[in-house]
């Protein structure tokens, strides 16, 4: 056990730190084009798609280096790269399961964010039970005809392409009849409607597909292999971002402490209140434990271990922590924590929530509710942990009983 960075990793960290300090944009990036330009700058410097094999435009970096770069990015308060789903898991899916033509056609433009991607998985009636999805892909000889509705599509409104799960064979067991497609979002049969969330903002969308086309050449893997592909790629992204996430929590903690020094209750700064101090100590400990756990996962990834179902522990842990964390921040800040405009300067400081959006405490508090729902709710993660990590017996499910 040795948690020191290797000399190579330390050198890499210093290099990344210096690069971000020099290059991080001074002015806020307002438009997609400005963000794309910043993304391109990072890509050219080698900080996007680092884990991708060099033959596909990545640098074959180790998990540790990827985590270090993400951490330095967070430390420098640098705007995140765009096309996160494309770079994080759609590209890797194409690398693993795609044809040579698909790789040639799509990969580079994912990395450079020339083409933006979204994920077309969840449906209004297929949330946790994703395999029950009903969007149809009918074989029409030279193409598939796609009809259905998707929801919770992040970035759908700016996406050029989507990775789509659709039912290609309604006659077989539900997990077996699903196929995976690369799907053109810029076609007449596709309508995208922003979904206004409890945050008041619209990071997610609804996508309606009416007699839309998925080309034969854009089928990923075999027909009916869609569920299997979705399973193998869902866990891609965890781990690499975990250190950066904690760094963002830590910078929010510093802001919280600043506010607790300035806000007074009963004539004394909040920071002198023993109850507030106990809460701060508690949440700081929890935050540090998230960091230690992230290092542990990273160390396993670094050794080539595939976290598999254990990545459910990571996801459950950080998303539940984030919820408690911002609840506690708002508890400590009292009414000031809820002000989104017009309050004290110290209390309306930007906070960088895990959505990557820099906004108010109130926004971060609301956004934290998403984390325990998306990418498999906490309840689904606990099922996975129970069944696949602890080996507890599967529950008797109505859909399995019906097939038996």
């Amino acid at each position, binding site marked *: *056990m*040795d*948690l*020191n*960075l*290797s000399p190579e*990793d330390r050198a890499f960290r210093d290099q990344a730190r210096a690069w971000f300090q020099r290059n991080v944009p001074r002015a806020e990036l307002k438009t997609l084009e400005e963000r794309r330009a910043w993304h391109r700058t990072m890509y050219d410097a080698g900080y996007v798609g680092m884990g991708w094999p060099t033959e596909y435009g990545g640098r074959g970096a180790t998990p*540790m280096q990827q985590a270090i770069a993400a951490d330095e990015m967070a430390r420098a308060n640098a705007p995140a790269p765009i096309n996160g789903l494309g770079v994080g898991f759609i590209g890797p899916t194409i690398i693993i399961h795609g044809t040579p033509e698909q790789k040639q056609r799509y990969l580079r433009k994912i990395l450079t964010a020339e083409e933006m991607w979204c994920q077309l998985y969840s449906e209004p009636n297929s949330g946790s039970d994703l395999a029950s999805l009903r969007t149809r892909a009918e074989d029409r000889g030279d193409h598939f005809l796609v009809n259905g509705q998707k929801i919770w599509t992040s970035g759908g409104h700016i996406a050029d392409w989507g990775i789509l799960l659709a039912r290609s064979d309604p006659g077989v067991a539900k997990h077996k009849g699903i196929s995976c497609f690369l799907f053109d979002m810029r076609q007449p049969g596709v309508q995208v409607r922003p979904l206004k969330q409890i945050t008041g903002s619209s990071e997610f969308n609804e996508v309606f597909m009416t007699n839309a086309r998925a080309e034969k050449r854009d089928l990923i893997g075999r027909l009916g292999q869609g569920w299997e592909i979705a399973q193998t790629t869902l866990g891609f992204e965890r781990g690499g971002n975990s250190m950066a996430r904690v760094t963002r929590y830590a910078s929010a*903690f510093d802001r919280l*402490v600043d506010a*607790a020094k300035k806000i007074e209750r009963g004539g004394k700064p909040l*920071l002198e209140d023993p109850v507030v*101090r*106990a809460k*701060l*100590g*508690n949440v*700081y*400990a*929890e935050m*540090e*434990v998230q960091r*230690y*756990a992230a*290092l*542990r996962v*990273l*160390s*396993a990834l*670094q*050794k080539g271990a595939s976290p598999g179902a254990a990545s459910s*522990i990571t996801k*459950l*842990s950080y998303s539940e922590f984030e919820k408690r964390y911002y609840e506690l921040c708002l508890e400590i800040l009292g009414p000031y924590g809820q002000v989104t405009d017009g309050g004290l300067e110290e209390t309306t400081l930007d906070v960088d929530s895990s959505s990557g959006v820099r906004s108010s405490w109130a926004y971060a508090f609301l956004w934290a509710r998403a984390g325990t729902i998306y990418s498999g709710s906490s*309840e689904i*993660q*606990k*099922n996975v*942990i*129970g*069944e696949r*990590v*602890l*080996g*507890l*017996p*599967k*529950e*008797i499910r109505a859909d399995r009983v019906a097939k038996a």
Partner: protein
Amino acid sequence: MDFSFSSDQQLLKNSARAFLDEHVKPAQVRLLWDDPRGESEALWKEMAQLGWLGLALPEDAGGSALGLVETAILQEELGRAACPSPYLSTVLAAMAIDRFGSPAQKSRWLPAVAGGGARATVALMERALDWSPQSIETRAEERGGKVALSGVKQFVPWAHVADVILVPALSGSTLAVYVVEASAPGVSITPLTSLDPGTRVAQVTLDGAAVAAEAKLPADALAFLLQRGAVGAAAEMLGAARRCLDMAVEYAKVREQFGQPIGSFQAIRHKCAEMLLEVENSHAATYYAAWALASGAEDGALAASVAKSYVSDASRKVCGDAIQVHGGIGFTWEYDLHLYFKRAKALEPLYGDAEHHRELIVRRVAS
């Protein structure tokens, strides 16, 4: 960077597990619960032979010169066995003597500890029930080349079997940690009976107890003891929690109600998943802190406080939830779960409770 145990560390863990599984079965733990001393001389000698008592002590004192990570590995296994033993308090005191003591103190105590001939403890708490140096009232007065200690130390682990007790006391306004032989005149020890009969505590009254003027360690030893004690306690609590988790999961696989194993019900499965999450986080917290203190990382003291406060809460929850998963049988005396439940609970208030460590954290990060 590598968070996993080295092959030597894994070997140590496996051999400790094998030894304790064979020699410290729950039945042995129960025998020691009923024993007036509460610990076994034979077991202590075996621990010495296995090299456990000198694990972190220098080789010239008969030790193995290993570090805090290895010590934590053993402590986790001792917690997993709910082994009644003054191991933690003894190695803690010995590590402080090794770090801060004079050559004479080292040669007096370290070989004795490593060889199993001496037990030790640390007296960190007084009537203020506070862990900070400011709460210390015990006085050290010079009397003809010797020092006389007067004061009362509360909840001292295993004082009734200790040969030497580390006693923080004030001489004027100068704090030092005195190395007191338990047999010295003026030392009286009143054992208490408490919730975990495998974690004995006693009140130590010093009524002009005489020690040699040079029998002391500098005040820095106090923070050292609290930090390393915190990590050792966290490791034991982690071991107890993992034992409870394992028992709960095994039980949930075989216990049937409504015609199915109860582990198939989400109410039980989700609880077990939450328990695993807490155990894994506790592992990360404990070993991060052990490594950070051992390697002199700048956040070592902070990490020790994080570990103690986090694992205290986590292990209580995990051990308690294990009782809940078991239902009625988990509440019986004859079922072994309460051995581990009680061990985890008993360590909560020792070596700084969670509240104290949270305050230490805030002082470090929000000054």
